[in-house]
């Protein structure tokens, strides 16, 4: 652990965006995340990998307090974004989630038109003063989501009528439309075919110019392709965290090595 932190400082010139210390998560009596410390950097893609049920998604959902919507879930420890404790009482989770956008495993477009799906966030946050500003925001978001060309002629068609890959890119566009600083992606490609996946991966690569991206993935190839930093979770522990190249070529921990070579998981 210590080694990897030193390397962090060496290899990056970016600032720390998210800093988590001693994070514990319980689902009722089930201890799901055990004492996780991690520093996630700005303008970087960080991948969380690990076998099913290891707590990747749970930890991801701590970062924008989505776990608040689950009654039995309790979070301990501190998570700071830009030096501010997000579990502080004064922090409004609604405001936090505007800053920390999220894309989910299954594409979940609202039963509205494509336009309204993307305009949803900007509307509720009052980001546009008039219709033309809103149009601009929507177009910009759809362009960032790499789907503008496909849907520009049918912005009023329902978002649910698109294909899975298009739906997921609409969801990404929807998330970037509120101009978050961090984008959390929970296995964004698991419901997509290879072509759609590679489109989303390209998109992630572009997004890191502006955002800090945290992506949970089951595909180690994907983690290796898109991320600069990788964290390996196992049974609720953060086993190893460091540069993606290091993790995949020269893992320090036995468990990491076993996982990436396919012996556990």
């Amino acid at each position: 652990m210590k080694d990897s932190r030193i390397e962090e400082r060496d290899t990056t010139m970016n600032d720390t965006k998210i800093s988590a210390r001693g994070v514990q998560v319980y689902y009722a009596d089930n201890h799901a995340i055990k004492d996780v410390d991690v520093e996630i950097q700005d303008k970087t893609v960080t991948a969380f990998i690990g076998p099913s049920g290891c707590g990747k998604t749970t930890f991801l959902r701590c970062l924008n307090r989505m776990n608040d919507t689950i009654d039995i879930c309790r979070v301990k420890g501190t998570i700071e974004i830009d030096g501010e404790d997000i579990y502080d009482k004064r922090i409004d989770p609604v405001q936090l989630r505007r800053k920390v956008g999220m894309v989910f495993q299954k594409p979940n477009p609202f039963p509205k038109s494509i336009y309204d799906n993307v305009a949803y966030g900007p509307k509720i946050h009052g980001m546009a003063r008039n219709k033309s500003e809103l149009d601009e925001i929507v177009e910009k978001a759809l362009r960032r989501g790499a789907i503008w060309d496909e849907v520009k002629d049918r912005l009023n068609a329902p978002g649910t009528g698109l294909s899975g890959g298009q739906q997921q890119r609409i969801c990404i566009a929807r998330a970037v439309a509120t101009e978050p600083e961090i984008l959390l992606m929970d296995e964004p490609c698991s419901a997509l075919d290879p072509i759609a996946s590679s489109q989303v991966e390209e998109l992630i690569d572009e997004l890191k110019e502006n955002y800090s991206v945290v992506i949970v993935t089951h595909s180690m190839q994907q983690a290796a392709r898109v991320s600069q930093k990788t964290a390996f979770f196992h049974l609720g522990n953060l086993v190893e965290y460091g540069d993606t190249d290091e993790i995949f070529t020269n893992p320090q921990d036995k468990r990491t090595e076993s996982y990436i070579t396919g012996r556990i998981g």
Partner: protein
Amino acid sequence: MPTHWLFLIVLALGIAGWFAARQKALASAGGSMRALHSLPNTYGTNAAIWTIVPALLILGAWIVIQPVVLDHWVSGSIPDSAVTDAGDRSLVMADVRRIAAGLNLAVAGGGLSAEEALSMQADAVSIRERMADLGIAIGTEPTQVSLDAAQKWFRIERVGRIAMTVIVLGAAATGFALALLRARRDVNARASVERAILGLLIGAALIAILTTVGIVMSMVFETADFFSRYSWTEFFFSTDWDPRFQGGSSLGMLPLLWGTLYISFIALLVAVPIGLFAAIYLSEYAGPRVRAVAKPLIEVLAGIPTIVYGLFALITVGPFLRDYFAQPMGFGNSSSSVMTAGLVMGIMLIPFVSSLSDDIINAVPQSLRDGSYGLGSTQSETVRQVVLPAALPGIVGAILLAASRAIGETMIVVLGAGAAARMSLNPFEAMTTVTVKIVSQLTGDTDFNSPETLVAFALGLTLFVMTLALNVLALYIVRRYREQYE
């Protein structure tokens, strides 16, 4: 042989068949269950089904059909000279059935031999007294014509009864024999039992459907009768409702329809917001503990008999509205009013709206809520902009179902709305509904041959068509909604 004995014998035969077939099947496999095609009990069940079901079906059909056929035959044998018109013939036939039943009882009781019953003459002794001696009451002294007919009835019925016994027992015995013959190790008794179960299930579904068809048919025939006596344009488009049993009544349904729709409208105005908000609270905001208590409590409202709601309207809500709203504001001084009935009916409908909406809101996938929260929206924004639009078709369906309940509701409006057929906009005035008028046209000693009574069927059919249309529309909307998320 009395019918219940016949029934018991068939059952006993079936049980005997169960054991016999089981035994025989086992024997055919040399006592080894594994060599059998089906389980021994299945062979037994198969035999029992073959013995009991056809026999009982024949028995049931016979019991239903025999009186109809008898009626036709006997009624045809009454000479036209003895009766003046069709109505008279049915009166004579009612007499005939009573006398025949009397003869039957007398013979069964042993007070009269069958030969004596058949040779009775109307002029000889007073049959009424003779029967009275035997403890059997007959209304009026029968005429020769009706006595002849009754004797014919009695004779055919006796023959029919014997034939029925023979045929039913024959069917049971045949089934028994056939099934026993087929209780062998290589016969697939399971398939046969499966088919019987399928038949049972289809039968149950058919009964439900046929009953609906039967209800509609009976309404349609009576309504056709009504329209042959009363102009349909008057009925549908006249605004005057004034039934008079001495004739010359005006039977326009518009005032009744107006009352029905007005009261339903107020009821929905009460039930939809309250029910919907309650559903949103329960499904989106309430914790599991609150929900576990609150949901059944709301549904208790659905279990209150509507007559109790009616009493509530009559003695509590009506006077309250009159004393504190209608009279001070000069809207009238009637305690039964559209408002009274509408409010109370609205309360009755709350659980319909809330329970159905709650289910529908719960069916909205959690991923949509997560998506909305993930974009930084509050709970009420999520509910208003994502959950409700997604659930809207289902909620509309729930509201339409509640509306069809409101339109068909009777007891609350009987007690709460009054009986005055009137078209007015003032909600504090007494008005009346279609259902109330159906009740009032049919209560009392009436025969169904005047427009004043038959109008009830036309009203009922109109109501039925309206609620049916609403239900179909609701089902259509709900079904379309379901396809979206499965």
